[in-house]
Structures are given as structure tokens and as C-alpha cells.
């Protein structure tokens, strides 16, 4: 095997196994930072060994066994009396001898470990950026360089963010445990928030010429699908997965030939990904299966599903979308959601009715500087035949957006108003 081939194999195996590896080590060592360090050591050992002796039949199992031996060594070296001995005995008892087949013996606990790792990486003691970086690093198996590239920052900045996050976790003595029932909702919300942040960072870059960073979307989706398997009893997990699947299904249709954004209603629906739509609708059905009121992610997914189900834009069930937005406004009040509701109302019941809703939002300080407010208002005014006012709104929106491609699109709409004047 060539050096290059071994590298590729190691990289692939790392991607597949690193989260499990770190999760298992974190349970054994009770320290996420140390766990990651040992996992890295095992990777380095793999590279050396496999270079010399070839890649083993089951590289994942090899990594697990090697890492586990090292963790046992470290536990032994800690030697804080009886307690470690007991812990060790407990591990051997619960998970079999370290020399055995780790993949088989550890299957079930590994699922629990992964879930714990997810909760710890998204622990509220950490800031949002730290949670995002740590999640991508520990669960996504991304390198510091990859994370830095995705977030348009330097490798050093990300490395430092991760080091600090691990230190914060250690200092706060965050236990490597699944949250207790009474904190589960809040802790799960934190995990879902992080995944959706990662997804959105990939879906629509807020600045720069890069409209999409598909790798982040894919990673968020992968982690979401993983979470849905680990904790299938939580409807909002399925809600978030449904939302991400449905949004991702439109990825290919969101860009025109010149890389410019294409609005949802103008997208070529033949380019929507039917496989992802099917998965999204299935995940939504799982979220709805309990018959409980839908959470905010599931509601947003239900809205996205209305679009996905419409074969052509004119088939869209706007009255249902408006009703879903009503529910969302109740559950998660936000001026952005109200703005979206106004758009749905305009489609279902007319621009005049919606304009009143939008005007009511105009003074909201939380929307000051938000380019979509004038963009929507411009759209409504244009439909009401008030071209001059519409143009002014589109121009305002163009000046506010930070996305270059979107700015071009809005300028074009402003210019397009001239004909109607």
C-alpha cells in the first residue's frame, strides 16, 4: 500500500471512528480533553503501525483496542488507591476484557457514550461558538483547519477556542452523563441549536462571496440523523432532522447558472432532491407520530413540507403555511417569524392584508438593519402597484444585506420596478 493510500485510509477510518473513540475514552477517563488527546495518540500509533505492517482487517476495531489499552494504562498510572482499581474492575466486568472484540462488546454502551459526548460538547456552560467548534471537532471528526476554513477564521483561533472550551468543561466539572430528566429539555435544545447553527452556517453564508458551504450542511445533517437514532423518543430531534433534510433538498435549486440566489418560488422544482424530500417528510411524520403539539423545529419543518409537497409553486397551501406560522409565533415569538408569517398571509389572503402586518413590524428595533424587512415590504408594494415606494425599499434592502450575491439580486429588483412606474 502506498503512503498516500494509507493516509487516505487513516483519514476515512478517523472520520468513521473518532467520535466513538473519543466518547468511549471520555467515559473511561471522565475528561473530554484527555479523551481527545488519547484518541489522537491512537491515530498516530495507527499511522506508524499500518505503514510498517499494513492496514489491519478491521481498522476501526484496531483503533478502539489500542485506545482502550492506553486509557487503561493511564487509569493505572493515576493510581489513586482503591477507587481506580474498582473502576477498572467495573469496566472489565461491564465491557469485557480489553483484549476482546471491542466493536461487539461495546456496541450498546457506545451509543450511550456518543449521546453523552454530544450533550457535553453542547453544554450550556460553553458559549455558542465554543459549542459549535467542539461539536465539529469531537463528533464530526473535523480538523482544526477544516473548522477554521468553514468559519472563515484562522486555525490558531479555532485551536484556542477548543482548548478553552475543554478547560471550561474540566473546570466546571461537567460530568460525562446524559442529563437528568428535569434538565433534558433545556440540554437537548442546546444540542439542537448547535446542529442548526452549523447547518445554517453552511446553508447561507452571512458574508463574503461564498453562498454555500455544503460540507457544513452535510455534517449537521449527519449529526442530526445520528442524534435521531440515539434518542428516537424526542419529537423535536426528528423535527430538526426533517427541517434540515427539507432545506437541503432545495440546495441544488437555490443557485442560478451564474451562482446567484434563486428565490424559493422561482426555483426549478425538478432540481429538488426527491430522496431528501422523502427523508424529510418521513422524519416529520416521526415528529408528528406522538400526537403532541409540534415544537418550533417541527413547525418549521411542517412549513418546509408544504413547499416540498407542492409540485408547482402555485399549488402551495399558503393558508396552511400561514396557520403554521401563527403557531410558531405563539411558541417562539420573533419579529423574523412574524415577517415570514406576513409573507404567507400575502400569498394566502393578499398583499394588502400583509402590508398592515409588515408595517406593524417596521418600528421593531430588533429588525433595524434586517434587509429582509424592506425586501418583503418592497415586494408587497410592488404587487400593490406602488412601484416608486417599492424601488426605494429594494434599494434599502440591497444596502443592508452583507451577502454580495443577494445585493445584486435586490438591486436588480429595484431596477425592475422602473418599468411599472
Amino acid at each position, binding site marked *: 500500500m502506498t503512503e498516500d493510500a494509507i493516509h487516505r485510509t487513516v*483519514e476515512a477510518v478517523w472520520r468513521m471512528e473518532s467520535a466513538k473513540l473519543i466518547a468511549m475514552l471520555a467515559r473511561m477517563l471522565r475528561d473530554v480533553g484527555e479523551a481527545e488527546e488519547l484518541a489522537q495518540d491512537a491515530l498516530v500509533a495507527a499511522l506508524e503501525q499500518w505503514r510498517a505492517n499494513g492496514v489491519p482487517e478491521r481498522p476501526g476495531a484496531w483503533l478502539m483496542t489500542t485506545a482502550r489499552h492506553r486509557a487503561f494504562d493511564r487509569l493505572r498510572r493515576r493510581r489513586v488507591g482503591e477507587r481506580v482499581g474498582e473502576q477498572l474492575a467495573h469496566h472489565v466486568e461491564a465491557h469485557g476484557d480489553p483484549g476482546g472484540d471491542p466493536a461487539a462488546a461495546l456496541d450498546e454502551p457506545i451509543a450511550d457514550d456518543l449521546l453523552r459526548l454530544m450533550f457535553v460538547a453542547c453544554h450550556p456552560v460553553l458559549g455558542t461558538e465554543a459549542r459549535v467548534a467542539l461539536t465539529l471537532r469531537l463528533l464530526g471528526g473535523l480538523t482544526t483547519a477544516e473548522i477554521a476554513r468553514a468559519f472563515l477564521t484562522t486555525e490558531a483561533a479555532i485551536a484556542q477556542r477548543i482548548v478553552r472550551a475543554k478547560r471550561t468543561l474540566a473546570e466546571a466539572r461537567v460530568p460525562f452523563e446524559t442529563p437528568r430528566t428535569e434538565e433534558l429539555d433545556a440540554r437537548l435544545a442546546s444540542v439542537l441549536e448547535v446542529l442548526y447553527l452549523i447547518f445554517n452556517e453552511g446553508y447561507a453564508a452571512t458574508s463574503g462571496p461564498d453562498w454555500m458551504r455544503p460540507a457544513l450542511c452535510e455534517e449537521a445533517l*449527519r449529526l442530526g440523523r445520528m442524534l435521531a437514532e440515539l434518542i428516537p423518543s424526542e419529537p423535536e430531534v426528528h423535527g430538526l432532522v426533517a427541517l434540515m433534510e427539507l432545506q437541503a433538498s432545495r440546495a441544488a435549486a437555490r443557485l442560478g447558472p451564474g451562482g446567484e440566489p434563486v428565490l424559493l418560488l422561482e426555483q426549478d422544482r425538478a432540481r429538488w432532491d426527491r430522496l431528501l424530500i422523502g427523508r424529510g417528510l418521513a422524519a416529520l411524520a416521526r415528529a408528528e407520530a406522538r400526537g403532541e403539539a409540534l415544537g418550533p423545529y417541527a413547525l418549521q419543518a411542517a412549513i418546509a413540507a408544504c413547499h416540498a409537497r407542492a409540485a408547482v409553486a402555485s399549488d402551495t397551501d399558503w393558508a396552511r403555511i400561514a396557520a403554521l406560522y401563527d403557531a410558531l409565533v405563539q411558541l417562539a415569538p420573533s419579529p423574523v417569524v412574524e415577517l415570514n408569517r406576513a409573507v404567507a398571509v400575502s400569498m394566502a389572503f393578499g398583499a394588502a392584508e400583509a402590508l398592515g402586518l409588515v408595517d406593524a413590524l417596521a418600528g421593531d428595533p430588533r429588525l433595524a438593519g434586517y434587509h429582509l424587512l424592506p425586501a418583503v415590504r418592497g415586494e408587497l408594494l410592488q404587487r400593490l402597484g406602488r412601484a416608486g415606494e417599492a424601488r426605494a425599499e429594494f434599494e434599502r434592502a440591497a444596502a443592508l444585506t452583507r451577502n454580495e450575491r443577494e445585493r445584486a439580486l435586490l438591486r436588480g429588483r429595484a431596477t425592475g420596478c422602473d418599468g411599472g412606474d
Partner: protein
Amino acid sequence: MRVMVMVKATADSERGVMPSPELLAAMGRFNEELARAGVLLAGEGLKRSALGCRVRFSGSHRTVVDGPFAEAKELVAGFWLWQVKSLQEAVEWVRKCPNPFPTDCEIEIRPVFEAEDFAPASTDPAARASAG
């Protein structure tokens, strides 16, 4: 990237020999592992080719040919669609797959075309014109 992973048929699968309960259980566990890793998008097992047919195209003619078809190892007995980061990752997953048949067999991995693969063509006016 998305890949299609095809389990090629064997003489046994073409005779309609059903997999053993042990193999079904092992495949079930493998599928679970794929799902839990967020890799599995879709997958199905296919019935033997004797139960299928082919539609042969020749100019404007269409001819239906009923199965079975020869060359079992060129036929597909089942497939998955996976979301992976690289072809190598798909290879490593396939290596973990339980052997699908008691006899020698093959699993083929093929990358799926992505939207980006068509991007250059869509900016080329000539290609766009010919595409309709």
C-alpha cells in the same frame, strides 16, 4: 458526496436462495450502524432477475425482454445510497459489511453525480441551448 453501493448478484441469489437468519440479523446490525453514523440514505434488496425485465432501446424502438439474465456477477442484488465524505470512507464502510453471500461476490461503489458536476455545463450557453 453520495455513493451508490451495489451488492452484485451470485448464482445463488439468482436462484432465489434466501439469506440465512444469521446473515439477515448481521445485515440488520450493519444497517443500524450505518443509520446511527448518519451515513445511510436509502437501501433495498432486489429480487432475482427472473422476476424482472429489461426494456431494450434501439432508436425509436423499445423491446421488452423478460428475465432471467445471464452473467450473475454483472447483475445487482441490492443497493444502498450513502452520504460519505470520500470514496475511501465508503470503502472502509464496505469492508465492515458482513459477507452478503456464502460464495465469492463483489460489492461495487459508484459516486453519484452531484449538482456541482453539472455547474460548468449550465454556465455554457451552448450546453444550455442543447439541453433545451
